[in-house]
């Protein structure tokens, strides 16, 4: 078959899509002019250093109205260019740029006449991306081997609960290990029913989520309320990495965090390397793509899947511990609040790639952190709406940008030997 090179002519659909993106950018510009500029006065002060840093940077001070006009103009320029000429293949990137500019405008507006610690937000973005990045990794490990994992939420919640109880009893490290193990147990259930009994994997996943939610809520009400000493785990504190942690901006953002953050980076690198460079990874991916092909060359399909799913569970349980031992030290009913499903979205957004998952998680972590900081700045938006931000971002990302995502070919299909 010869492929015919096409002249660069956009089809009707592509042109429409380009124009819609252009209109979105123009609307963002209009929103900046109409909503933000009339209500912004004075100067916006962005803190670039935390008080305890060795090198102190001067805060960034910008005139609110002037910079908003500037940002609106940039948005209008991008939108106009996209509408009339189109950025073609780079359109999605420019949409991302436009959204970033809009967020910047939002921050300038919210900060007008006040102080705002930009560093605090970046630092909390990284912290908040932990459960989502790790949850996505848990999903990637399972799905690369061909088992759909929508039980990430359950693994997170279970890990959070087990982590706090065991943590209260024996200390933080013990809680961390127990949480990790609890995720593996849930994952093993998923694997057992999905592989051994070929139960529909979506249903097993839902069952695990509901089971964990029900069980932890019950135990919280029945046990933790009367025994508050079981719901009081030591928190893993931030540990500043020497030298790296002293770099302005980057230091406090990345290198003055809890071990959860460092572990996330290490796991992303490790799993990416493992999946794409090692024998284990090649075999795991082959099982997720074409189990029959793997079988004919002597790879034990089901064992490979058990291992991958259980590893995913370990990561999921570890991620769950972040909610309790990594932040507040106590468990609240349904405290994961759907982060497991956001992790699922991050996994899809990242096309089942660990490094992409980290990037996607950062987007969600940012929106999570943003809504919290905006609430602190007391913007005239009801906090309930602000709290929706991460979920809104999820919908926009999954519906709008994912498009061509392709799951592993055998994802969700049990393997039956003939």
């Amino acid at each position: 078959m010869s492929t015919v090179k096409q002249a660069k002519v956009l089809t009707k659909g592509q042109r429409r899509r380009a124009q819609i993106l252009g209109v979105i950018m123009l609307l963002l510009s209009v929103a900046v002019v109409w909503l933000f500029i009339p209500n912004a006065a004075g100067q916006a002060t962005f803190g670039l250093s935390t008080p305890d840093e060795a090198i102190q940077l001067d805060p960034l001070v910008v005139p609110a109205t002037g910079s908003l006009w500037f940002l609106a103009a940039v948005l209008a320029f991008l939108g106009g260019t996209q509408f009339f000429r189109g950025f073609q293949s780079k359109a999605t990137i420019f949409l991302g740029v436009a959204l970033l500019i809009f967020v910047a405008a939002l921050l300038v507006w919210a900060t007008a006449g006040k102080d705002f610690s930009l560093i605090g937000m970046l630092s909390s973005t990284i912290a908040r991306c932990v459960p989502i990045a790790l949850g996505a990794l848990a999903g990637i490990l399972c799905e690369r081997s061909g088992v759909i994992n929508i039980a990430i939420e359950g693994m997170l919640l279970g890990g959070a609960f087990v982590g706090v109880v065991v943590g209260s009893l024996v200390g933080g490290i013990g809680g961390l290990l127990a949480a990790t193990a609890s995720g593996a147990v849930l994952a093993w259930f998923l694997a057992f029913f999905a592989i051994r009994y070929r139960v529909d994997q979506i249903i097993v996943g839902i069952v695990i989520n509901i089971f964990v939610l029900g069980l932890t809520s019950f135990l919280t009400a029945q046990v933790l309320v009367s025994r508050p000493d079981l719901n009081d785990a030591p928190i893993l504190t931030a540990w500043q990495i020497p030298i790296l942690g002293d770099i302005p901006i980057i230091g406090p953002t990345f290198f003055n965090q809890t071990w959860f953050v460092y572990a996330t980076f290490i796991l992303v690198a490790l799993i990416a390397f493992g999946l794409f460079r090692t024998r284990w990874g090649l075999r795991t991916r082959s099982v997720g793509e074409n189990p029959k092909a793997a079988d004919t060359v002597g790879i034990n399909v089901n064992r490979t899947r058990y291992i991958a799913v259980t590893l995913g569970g370990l990561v999921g349980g570890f991620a769950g511990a972040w909610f309790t031992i990594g932040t507040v030290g106590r468990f609240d009913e349904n405290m994961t609040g759907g982060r497991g499903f956001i992790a699922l979205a991050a996994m899809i957004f990242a096309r089942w790639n660990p490094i992409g998952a980290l990037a996607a998680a950062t987007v969600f972590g940012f929106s999570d952190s943003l809504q919290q900081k905006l609430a602190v700045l007391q913007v005239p938006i009801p906090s309930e709406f602000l709290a929706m931000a991460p979920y809104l971002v999820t919908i926009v990302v999954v519906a709008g940008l994912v498009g061509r995502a392709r799951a592993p070919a055998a994802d969700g299909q049990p393997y039956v030997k003939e």
Partner: protein
Amino acid sequence: MTRLELRGITKRFPGVIANQDISLKAEPGQVLALVGENGAGKTTLMNILYGLYQPDDGQILLDDKPVKFKGPGDAIAAGIGMVHQHFMLVPVFTVYENVILGVEPTGAAGVIKTKVARDEVIEISNRYGLAVDPDALVEDLPVGIRQRVEIIKVLLRGAQVLVFDEPTSVLTPQEVEEFFVIVKELRDAGKTIIFITHKLKEAISFSNQIVVLRGGQVVGSADPKTVSEEEVAAMMVGREVDLVVDKEVARVGEVKLRVRNLMVVDDYGRPLVDGVTFDLKGGEIVGVAGVQGNGQTELVEVITGLRQPAKGQVELLGVDVTFKSARERHALGMAHVPEDRQDMGMVGAFSVMENLILDSYYSPTFAGAITLKRQPIAKNAVDLVEQFDIRPPMPAVAASTLSGGNQQKMIVAREFSRDVPVIVCSQPTRGVDVGSIEYIHAQIVAKRDQGAAVLVVSTELDEVIALSDRILVMFQGRVVAERVTSETSPTELGLYMAGRTN
């Protein structure tokens, strides 16, 4: 020295003897063709050889030493390599990743030595003239190259005996030629080649020895130098077979199907069918030849109402049906034997009886106000099963349990049993045994002689030539040649299929 010998292999399954006392020998540097109809026991025999089944009786000898295989792993280790009909490749992996899967060269901590892997692939590829890029993604490769990846896979594992299951069924004519060049290369390097096929021409042209299986037994072996296709076919089927389709001169009537300037584009706006125009008259068979993927599928979909064209017109019996549904066309008088019988022609889990009314279950003959009429449906099935010789003659069994040939006969029975003026047959005999091919061809000719206009689309050039009165050749969505069958040759048509233009 005999490289491979089977002695008295017998394999019984509950109710059937799949292989009975099969013995054969193959030497190094020999190409052995194993032919037989579907269900003759070829696949069972190969699965025994590959360690998937254990024989109930008999012995396998490799280099005169008896061996026992408990699984494919043992067979691979002993030097037997299998190239399956449906390739066992991971589409999103590169060539070298597919080749090394399961035998990865690794360093510390299981890290794959990419360079070693690529070099091995390049080395084998060069040694046997396979010309495969180790870094290409398998999903981007044409079928012929994918097959070579499979060959490299078995060679890398040290195969001395290579077993090919229907190796040419998915290849274009050019790829088939290239494939047999590779087979010669392997043969000359001292490998033993066994290929399973039902294409007698290939068995005769490319093998040193032909072994014929029927009903689980070896019914004969033949020297390809002296035997004719008809003789081998007779051995396979157990009776004389007519490979030439008998037909009288066409009595051509008026135009029944008019196709004008048809244009189909894919999602990206690229043309799949590009300005096709033709007339189909009553009493003639028009064949559409072409290598798979040159727009035939889309053309049939538009004609039968499964897809809408970007431009152009389809006229059935003088009525413009371009935007009419498949059912409206069916009601007007169009029958359709689709190219993929499993996916489009039948519902495997339904009984033969139900499949036989899939196109007309709603007609007053079969349907009451609320329920289906059981009696007429059963009678219809009994009649058609008898008339079209569908075996086993049990209308209540699930259609999926039938052999490919009988499934196809069932579909033909459903489509041909009505009095239809226009019939569209796509790949009418793909994957069908010789006996059924003969039967289906006879049915198509009979319909023509009754005055129906028949369009036959097939990637088997021999079939198009045997059936058609007139032949259209499609290449990249266009009709590049139109010939009266008696005034053309396979060579000429083959050149058009390969893209020669006027």
